[in-house]
């Protein structure tokens, strides 16, 4: 295994150093994210998932333990900007992360900060905008865009820094359903195109189902970790940490309780429909 992100016994608290009794938001997290993988981090509000995300590019520094990006300690001051280039971050509120008054200018913001020569910035902006399908709206003002489009601009802004990993902190929480699809499709496409490592912080089960690994946090600890099929079908364990399994899983379980054998639990609506259709076929044959 070749981890790009690694946390070792990571602890964190918002109470500062001198607080006598610290309430730990992160309480001993050991996690390694493999290069090129797509990891979804699930968790209830206050489970520490956003706090964890902010450790991956050195926005927060560990209280105890350590975080490594490509083997570099995030606490090392001299490499912090290189680290932030490698690990791009997309935040929840699309309005509060767009800095410039024009789409293309905003995409250029990262490379400008890195001191990339102008011709190269132009090339990167063109490429990043094309990758997220925003070329036509490049000279628009960001406040005229939809939520999904704004998030795509934010992703383009990260891409223009040529990152190796993208951490998305609930990027769809403030979007309508079509914007949500839009953003996730973009993320998945880019992952395939550039071989990016993707860490998606979310509380939508259907989004987590698209990942190839799901990590569930609760009270600052990793409580479940596995493939989506392992984690998302574990209804009881999810319920114990205040999460509901994806609705296709719950539907299939309800059917099962009523005596319909739909086979392996489905994760997506499509899968669920297939299982039900197959079961109806077999029922018809039996009659």
């Amino acid at each position, binding site marked *: 295994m070749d981890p790009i992100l690694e946390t070792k016994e990571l602890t964190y608290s918002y109470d500062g150093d001198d607080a006598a009794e610290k309430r730990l938001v992160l309480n001993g997290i050991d996690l390694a994210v493999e290069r090129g993988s797509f990891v979804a981090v699930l968790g209830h509000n206050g489970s520490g998932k956003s706090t964890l995300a902010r450790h991956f590019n050195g*926005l927060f520094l560990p209280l105890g333990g350590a975080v490594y990006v490509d083997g570099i300690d995030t606490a090392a001051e001299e490499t912090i900007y290189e680290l932030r280039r490698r690990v791009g971050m997309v935040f929840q509120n699309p309005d509060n992360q767009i800095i410039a008054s024009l789409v293309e200018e905003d995409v250029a913001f990262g490379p400008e900060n890195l001191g990339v020569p102008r011709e190269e*910035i132009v090339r990167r902006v063109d490429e990043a905008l094309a990758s997220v399908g925003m070329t036509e709206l490049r000279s628009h003002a960001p406040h005229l865009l939809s939520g999904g489009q704004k998030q795509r601009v934010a992703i383009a802004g990260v891409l223009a820094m040529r990152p190796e990993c993208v951490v998305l902190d609930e990027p769809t929480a403030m979007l309508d359903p079509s914007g949500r699809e839009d953003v996730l499709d973009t993320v998945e496409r880019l992952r395939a195109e550039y071989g990016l490592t993707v860490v998606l912080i979310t509380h939508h089960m259907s989004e987590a189902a698209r990942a190839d690994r799901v990590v569930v946090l609760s009270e600052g600890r990793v409580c479940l970790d596995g493939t989506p099929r392992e984690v998302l079908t574990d209804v009881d364990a999810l319920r114990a940490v205040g999460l509901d399994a994806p609705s296709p899983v719950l539907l299939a379980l309800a059917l099962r309780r009523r005596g319909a054998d739909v086979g392996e639990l489905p994760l997506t609506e499509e899968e669920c429909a297939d299982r039900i259709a197959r079961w109806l076929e077999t029922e018809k044959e039996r009659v």
Partner: protein
Amino acid sequence: MLKNITLGQYFPGNSLIHRIDARFKLILTALFIAMVFCAKTPAGYGLIAAFLIFVVADSRIPPRLILKSLRSILIFIVFTAVLNVFFTKGETVLFSWRFLTVSREGIVFAVSMVLRIVFLIVGTSMLTYTTSPILLTDAIEALFSPLKKLRFPVHELAMMMSIALRFIPTLIEETDKIMSAQKSRGADFESGNLFRRVKSFIPLLIPLFVSAFRRADELATAMESRCYRGGDGRTRYRVMRSAARDWVALGAAAALTAGVVVLRIFGL
């Protein structure tokens, strides 16, 4: 209510005025202001008016909008006119009643003051009407960059300005939203005397400020994530290039200013 703020708004276009380099336009505006304060004679004012009419006509900005920007300072204009008419001491008294006297000089002075104000407002709004705020910020940063040597935070101020500009529409939208929310719960922003109306804005301003601070915090985090570390070592995506027309415009404006000064000296 908040949609009709036009002062300081940009109208995209492709006219000569639009295409003049923002740095030059800034200098032109400074020259224009100097011109307005130098003018003293009808011929001088006529020259400035002609220049302004040319600029407005060229920019293709509907005159209606320009009148609208004047309407917002109408009270100020009227106030200036009235004060100057009544309180300028002059020799040729036309009318007198108790402590109020109207003299010929007073009227002339009032008219010239009003003209100056109108010229200044129209002239400076032509700058913001025809220059995108981003280019304007860039121009300010470029023109003031020599001050960096005196450790004056030119880049930081320009960055702050561009962020402020970026967030104006966002905050206006938010204000509208909060107002609707308050109205739906019975808040009244439109009736009552001035004091009451001002007071009714407090429940509007508090949530607006709270959210603005939260936005600022999140924006700072996002900027940090994208490796922002001040102006040092930063490259620019957009570069400003001056063309021949910029120098021609500057020359023309300088000549015009000289003309106004000459008219003043000769008292024409």
